[in-house]
């Protein structure tokens, strides 16, 4: 049976419509994976000598055990955002003579072979070998290593439980933040010292390897919960059961003041508000707006003036980047309709432009309190906002004309990479790096004020030539009309 499943997967991978098109992203992911492997390997090899050097009077193994709690939290958090339960097209299998248990076991078993479970091995094994070389008792070290590997797999399954429970909620990442944050806080304020608890647990396993039975029991427990959760979902109607809520239709007549783009503005606002994925980009606004708070209070960054412009572009342009990079893929589901209707491309694009420009202005105004950290910061943000309106909006719309990836609006939101292609990564260069580099150069060679002014002038030029630029962009969209219709017709 497993053989058939593996065969199906092999085919679905190589026969997918976007195979090859998404090769760029795979190569990128490959490099990321390689980077992490090297990092972990270095950590595994170097950890023992470094700890010995820094804390000569302590046992490095003890120190590691005491920090395991943080590893658990970080791993859990990381996995939540980046690891997804491997999916399989189960619908066609349901009517075939395959037991549901086999399907569920296969999907869960497959998840154990995730990259995330192998990564810690690169640190655990070299560290364990070092321990053995340094004459630690062999059986204990092996027991300890095995315990850690089991822990990795426990986290693997724990993550899926959290994911499946939180995917129903509006803000899917809130439960995990509260969960890990809560544990961290309890530990940090010494209410319950998880560091010690976890530390002594693994020291216990090291001393008495048969304690591993506890880990096995936890693993079995997590697995069975996952099993039940999945088993319940393996019915055709499980997706239909969700009650269809009555919708409340807001009156968007106020958009009429934007003139002939009004129908498209209404459509875009509804698009954003009524679909999970786009809605999450609204929540990203808060993150973007507060982004500066990670850096400005820190005296290290106070001196790095060129960094202001990065944060300025990012915090005033978070919506622009998030929303703009998937124009026109947001409308991919009904692109054929738009193309056969009596519309002007220019109006369609202008509506997107207006939304983005308004968001930049609003985010700049909301970000005015940053003046608390100095006038220079506000001025840099102002320059960044003008640059965003005048240059980045156009750049991102222009980039959209190379967009060939369909987005299925009904799918879950956060960190969903559907629709992402090489263009989305490349567009980041002019968007963020060019203004940052230019600013850094001018700031270093001339002065802060001139650097800001140059960005403002570029932005203003973009605004002045808005009509001309839009005509050019519209032309680009018209050129690739047929390719887009064709691409948006395919599921990826």
């Amino acid at each position, binding site marked *: 049976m497993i053989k058939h499943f593996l065969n199906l997967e092999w085919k679905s991978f190589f026969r997918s419509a976007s195979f090859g098109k998404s090769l760029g992203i795979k190569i990128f992911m490959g490099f990321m994976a390689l980077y992490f492997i090297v990092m972990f390997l270095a950590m595994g090899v170097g950890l023992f000598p470094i700890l010995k050097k820094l804390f000569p009077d302590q046992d490095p193994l003890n120190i590691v055990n005491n920090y395991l709690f943080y590893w658990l939290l970080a791993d859990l958090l990381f996995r939540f955002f980046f690891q997804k339960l491997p999916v399989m097209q189960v619908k066609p299998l349901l009517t075939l003579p395959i037991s549901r248990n086999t399907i569920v076991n296969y999907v869960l078993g497959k998840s154990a072979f995730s990259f995330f479970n192998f990564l810690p091995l690169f640190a655990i094994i070299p560290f364990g070998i070092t321990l053995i070389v340094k004459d630690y008792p062999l059986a204990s070290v092996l027991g300890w290593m095995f315990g850690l590997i089991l822990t990795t797999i426990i986290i693997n399954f724990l993550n899926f439980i959290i994911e499946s429970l939180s995917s129903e909620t509006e803000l899917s990442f809130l439960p995990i933040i509260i969960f890990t944050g809560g544990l961290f806080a309890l530990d940090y304020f010494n209410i319950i010292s998880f560091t010690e608890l976890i530390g002594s647990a693994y020291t216990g396993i090291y001393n008495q390897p048969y304690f591993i039975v506890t880990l096995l029991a936890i693993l079995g427990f997590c697995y069975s919960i996952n099993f039940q959760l999945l088993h319940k979902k393996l019915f055709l109607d499980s997706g239909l059961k969700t009650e269809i809520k009555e919708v409340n239709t807001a009156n968007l007549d106020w958009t009429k003041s934007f003139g002939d783009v009004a*129908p498209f503005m209404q459509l875009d606002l509804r698009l954003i508000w009524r679909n999970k994925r786009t809605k999450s980009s609204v929540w990203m606004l808060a993150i973007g707006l507060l982004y500066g708070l990670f850096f400005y209070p820190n005296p290290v960054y106070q001196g790095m003036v060129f960094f202001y412009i990065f944060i300025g572009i990012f915090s005033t342009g978070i919506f622009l980047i998030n929303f703009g990079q998937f124009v026109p893929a947001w409308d991919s589901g009904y692109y054929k309709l738009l193309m056969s209707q009596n519309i002007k491309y220019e109006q369609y694009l202008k509506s997107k432009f207006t939304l983005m420009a308004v968001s930049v202005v609003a985010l700049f105004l909301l970000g005015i309190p940053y003046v608390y950290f100095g006038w220079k910061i506000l001025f840099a943000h102002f320059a960044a906002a003008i640059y965003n309106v005048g240059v980045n909006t156009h750049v991102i719309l222009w980039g959209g004309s190379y967009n060939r990836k369909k987005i299925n609006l009904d799918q879950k939101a956060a960190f969903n990479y559907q629709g992402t292609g090489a263009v989305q990564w490349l567009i980041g260069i002019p968007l963020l790096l060019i203004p940052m580099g230019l600013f850094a150069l001018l700031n270093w060679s001339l002065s802060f004020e001139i650097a800001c002014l140059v960005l403002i002038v570029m932005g203003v030029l973009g605004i002045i030539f808005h009509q001309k630029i839009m005509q050019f962009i519209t032309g680009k969209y018209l050129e690739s009309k047929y390719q887009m219709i064709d691409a948006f017709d395919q599921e990826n």
Partner: protein
Amino acid sequence: MITTSNLSKKYSGNQVLFIEDLEIPKGQSFGLVGNNGAGKTTYFSLLLDLIQPSTGEIVSHDIQVNKSEAWKPFTSAFIDESFLIGYLTPEEYFYFIGELRGQNKATVDAFVAQFEDFFHGEILGKKKYLRDLSKGNQKKAGIVSALIGNPEVVILDEPFANLDPTTQIRLKGIVKDLAEKQGVTILISSHDLLHVTDVCERIVVLEKGEVVKDLITNEATLKELEAHFSN
């Protein structure tokens, strides 16, 4: 009037459509039948300039459709569910289409109200998004949306599929009325020979992308079509 001349569409050397000469006069109800892969949807997609012809052209009311966009104001279509905007309610969708065709809310309301019967009380005022409607109800909304704004050419791909018997009969009434009384050119494709012969004045049979029969509908037409498709 829609004139098609030397129209062909090839996909990597494989010819899926070739129509040497086809004229559809204004106000005709035109039916297109053929087995799967005969080229019906391809022809409609070419009519709407959604794909590029390999050779030839379609001229609709003196406008070559892949050269100018001036055919859009008087042409409307419902090909499949991808013509619907899932996150709108049917009313919002009608208003949106209406707006694109220069109709205000009141006009759209009045227009849509005529189809109360056709909707069977399942579309209007339900406060549901289009994506949450059943396939049949989605189709009803899509068909009516294609009639908003007095189009002169209406293109419907498989309009009878997925509809319940009552609605099929009502749809036939609507189509006949459009062509006979209002002079709308209406193009329909269908697998249902009975329905097509009922509503269309003229029926063209496509086979492997080419026109093999071009019939003016009369009592014998259904028999002839059935005979054609049985072998």
